């Protein structure tokens, strides 16, 4: 459980608050999307979720514990953060060691480390690269490696900053599958993204941030139907919602994927006959 209570934050040398009066509760088993324009404070917010940044005013509590009270390592074991740029974390001589790094830091036993690394390599189709230098992987593979290195220690919360940048369509679909699988294991996945199509396929609880404050926190379907809010945050509609706008009121809800759209249209056509 992550609880954020009237959180204000400003960077040490800056004058203005980057985050203003944020209030949030995120429980286990949720999918949460965070969207907002460049510089609106999304990355700053998620850095509070494992104690990398501490509130200037207000509180952040992880499973009831104030982030000021324990080390980042303590919270990271429960909250895994995957950052935007793989170049900022890859350093090991082999792909295997890159995944094992965090497990060693958290003090897992040798046997468990081996098991977890092997699982992560297989799960992300990286086994063939295990003895290679991670620097030689392609951009998309590096991103997958970073996700693997976090999932390997099995945190309860997984936070992904811009996971779809530079990923081909196949990998995006795979990522959606992985996220859905994690949810069935009662994990929580928080995704920060500018990719409306990706967010739409996830159908998450959506949090919109503009200028360091939460503008809207609610069901993704109702938010994507609200033109004024989307305009305020500079977000476009997913194509399936545009389709719904065109067909309204012939269909009552925007379809969540192409298959549902297809069956809705088929039903309409049958009705016309």
């Amino acid at each position, binding site marked *: 459980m992550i609880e954020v209570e009237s959180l204000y934050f400003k960077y040490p*040398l800056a004058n203005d608050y980057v985050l203003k009066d944020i209030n949030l509760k995120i429980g286990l088993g949720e999918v949460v999307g965070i969207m907002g324009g460049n510089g609106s404070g999304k990355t700053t917010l998620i850095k509070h979720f494992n104690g990398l940044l501490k509130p200037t005013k207000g509180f952040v509590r992880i499973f009831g514990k104030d982030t000021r009270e324990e080390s980042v390592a303590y919270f*990271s074991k429960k909250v895994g953060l995957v950052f935007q740029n793989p170049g900022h*974390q890859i*350093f090991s001589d082999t792909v295997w060691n890159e995944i094992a790094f965090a497990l060693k*830091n*958290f003090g897992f036993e040798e046997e468990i480390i081996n098991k977890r690394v092997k699982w992560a390599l297989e799960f992300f189709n990286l086994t063939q690269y295990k003895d290679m230098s991670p620097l030689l992987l392609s951009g998309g593979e590096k991103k997958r490696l970073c996700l693997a*290195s*976090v999932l390997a220690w099995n945190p309860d919360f997984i936070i992904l900053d811009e996971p779809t940048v530079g990923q081909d369509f196949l990998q995006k679909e795979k990522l959606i599958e992985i996220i859905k699988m994690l949810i069935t294991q009662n994990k929580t996945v928080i995704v920060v993204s500018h990719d409306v199509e990706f967010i739409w396929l996830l159908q998450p609880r959506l949090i919109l941030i503009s200028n360091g404050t939460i503008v809207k926190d609610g069901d993704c379907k109702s938010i994507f139907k609200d033109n004024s809010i989307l305009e305020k945050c500079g977000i476009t509609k997913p194509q399936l919602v545009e389709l719904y706008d065109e067909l309204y009121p012939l269909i009552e809800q925007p379809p969540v994927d192409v298959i549902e759209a297809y069956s809705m249209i088929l039903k309409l056509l049958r009705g016309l006959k």
Partner: protein
Amino acid sequence: MFWLAEGLVYRRQESIIHSLDPRVKLIISFSLFILSLFSSTIFEFIILLSAIFLLGVLSKVLRRMIKTITFSLTFVIMIFVINLLVGYDLIFSIVISLRFIAIISSSSIFFLTSSPDELDLVMRSLHLPYDLIFAFVTAVRFVPVILLDAIQIIDSQRSRGLEIEKGNIFKRIRNYIPILIPLIVQSIIRSEELAEAMESRAYGFSKKRTSYYTLHFKMKDYLILCLHLMLVVLFILLVYFLHL
């Protein structure tokens, strides 16, 4: 820890000192630097450091100047202790430490108040070869970028359970490996990208470079330069010749 080094980075600001011709700023900074090298009593350093801090106040960068000094404090303490251990007396060790602080803070006056563009213009007015100027200015320009990288890298590795301040001295040095390797790799990638971007925009094509901005002394520059030189001469006379 790395944000302390922000004290070295230029920020756009308005002040009397910022608006001076960069050549004047260089002369002020450099003369104080030279005086710091040759001064040898605590009294002299008190005068010098007061002058430097006064300049810091006038240019509104005092806070960041003090950060730079805090950042270098580890070295200052090391210098002080080593001098004592090697057998120099207390006064001498204090003088050496003060000299180090004066050198750092006097040179930081120029870098805190002059943009990389101004640095470029000053070095050109000294007729240095342009490749050298370019390399130096780019290095200075990249400091804030590399600092941001360093912050991101530290955040990434701390999120993976790295505890930099944990363990004995050898463990602590080893803790920096996961930070230094990505930092170096990122810098190499960035410099390669920069070289390619510059070549595709015809860097080095024309032999004779022109500049959009040129440097001109204004009344203010002459006044402040004269005032500064008078004070420097006065200081030299009083201290070195009258042994005040």
